[in-house]
């Protein structure tokens, strides 16, 4: 087993399991996968998923099935900052197409790609429930809303600065 939660995170896993009836520990799969993705590099490796399966006492395939169904789990490595830009109807009406092409141009990558320095990944996603604050994107835990080109510039600069400071 190449991955292992810390003691603190294991307690968290057990707390998650305890939220569901006895014997229904599989119910904790979604939250535990979120935790695993957050802890182990922003994506789910096969060994990570096998580890989660062993924690929940289920078959590995049950984890693969679930992880591949939901769009928030990354099954391939992603950049440090993932720009998930909404492109559905209401965002489109407010110019999400232009925002997406601007980000492509700024970062010199296509949708689905990661910059060479491994810092940014650009994804297009479907409605994130922020239609009134369009165009928008999700960046990690938070939503960046009412995007303009200037705002995108600012976000990219901030991320670059934080990454530089952490290195």
């Amino acid at each position: 087993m190449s991955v292992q939660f810390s003691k603190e995170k294991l307690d968290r896993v057990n707390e998650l399991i305890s939220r569901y009836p006895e014997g229904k520990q599989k119910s904790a799969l979604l939250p535990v996968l979120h935790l695993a993705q957050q802890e182990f590099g922003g994506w789910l490796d096969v060994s990570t998923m096998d580890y989660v399966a062993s924690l929940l006492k289920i078959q590995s395939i049950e984890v693969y099935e679930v992880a591949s169904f939901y769009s928030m789990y990354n099954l391939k490595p992603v950049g440090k900052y993932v720009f998930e830009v909404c492109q559905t109807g209401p965002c489109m009406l407010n110019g999400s197409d232009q925002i997406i092409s601007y980000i492509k141009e700024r970062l010199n990558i296509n949708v689905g790609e990661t910059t060479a320095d491994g810092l940014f990944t650009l994804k297009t996603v479907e409605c994130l429930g922020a239609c009134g604050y369009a165009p928008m994107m999700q960046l990690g835990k938070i939503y960046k809303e009412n995007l303009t080109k200037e705002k995108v510039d600012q976000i990219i600069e901030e991320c670059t600065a934080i990454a530089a400071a952490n290195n």
Partner: protein
Amino acid sequence: MTKKLLLDKVHVEGIRNFDVYRREGGYQSVEKALKMQQDDIVEEVKKSGLRGRGGAGFPTGLKWSFLAKPEGLSRYLVCNADESEPGTFKDRYLMELIPHLLIEGMIVSSYALGSTTSYIYIRGEYDWVSDILDKAIDEAKQNGFLGKNILGSGFDCEIYTHRGAGAYICGEETALLESLEGKRGLPRIKPPFPAVKGVWDCPTVVNNVETIAAVVPIINDGGEAYSKIGVGRSTGTKLISACGNINKPGVYEIDMTISVEEFIYSDEYCGGIPNGKRLKACIPGGSSVPILPANLLLKTAKGETRMMNYESLSDGGFATGSMMGSGGFIVLDEDQCVVRHTLTLARFYHHESCGQCSPCREGTGWMEKVFQKIENGKGEMKDIDLLWDIQRRIEGNTICPLGDAAAWPVAAAIRHFRDEFEWHINNREECLIRNYGLAHYADPLEAVVS
């Protein structure tokens, strides 16, 4: 001005905190409800005429009364906070700004239904909202409104949040339950209905966030008082999330007696369309309900003023009407392209189809491809009829309503905007650089109907 039942206290400073919320009169409904018989609470909800706010509009009290109560099986209340319908963001607004209202409603509803462990299934992307709810739950527990023997009533209740992970389909109640069980979000084949066999095979009620929040004023003021707000079978207030080309996008609480025109143009609500542009079309209830051209939106085919309520919005059926749906109000101005907009919706439903049943799995992808073809200036006349045929054979033939949700917007776009499709096909190069524009879509209705 609408009397606000849900969002009245939203802007009180610190309302997210238990103390402020309590000081503003919060949690009184729990105190009141715990002294009532469970069946009496269900009766109050029935009396109120409250209808499910998630989109289907099914009477909540009736849904509650269907809950099976077999010996030895736990019953569960699950709150559907998997808000993912394009155009809809009202639940997020409510949970983010006034989380205790939902928790309060959850406690009362859990008591009414006999659920000692209840879950809030929240869409995965609302990560920070889930944290806000967790904090609210903790506070409620510290203050004795959750946990063992709530307020000495003998009623125990725990509430947990459960984050999804990106799947629109989990807003369908049985897919949501599958997801809550840690599985792929595949809708179940009904019957059995969740009220008999829900999560972990136990009787379960699934209600939308706004529905559960509405239980609070119903218990506080009584079902009858609630039923007097609004009109006809559209009782109470409804949260509308307005977006698209309007001056003031946001969430509004309305009492369903105002007209659509007032909602779009008055400063109290959407504040009109930016830059003095004209209204072309609108999807009044979330992306899956039929789109209407401006003339049919503001007036029904009978020539009556269209109102913002369940009955009036659906007046005329799908031929000339639409639906209240989830209250996601999407406005398109004169510069927008209906083909392009419907394409994004077709892409959305293709992306979100779970793939379990064949019409939806294959049909949604096919529709998106035909739309791409037309939008990219390669369309042929037969493609319009093909699209019509594909949607027609998806509708009603699938396991869950996602198939219908994918079919309706396409059907309505073709029904009302066929000439815009034809223009794309006849002007293959021009359609790449400019849009069809307003055309006749805002012309007086009389001219259109006759």
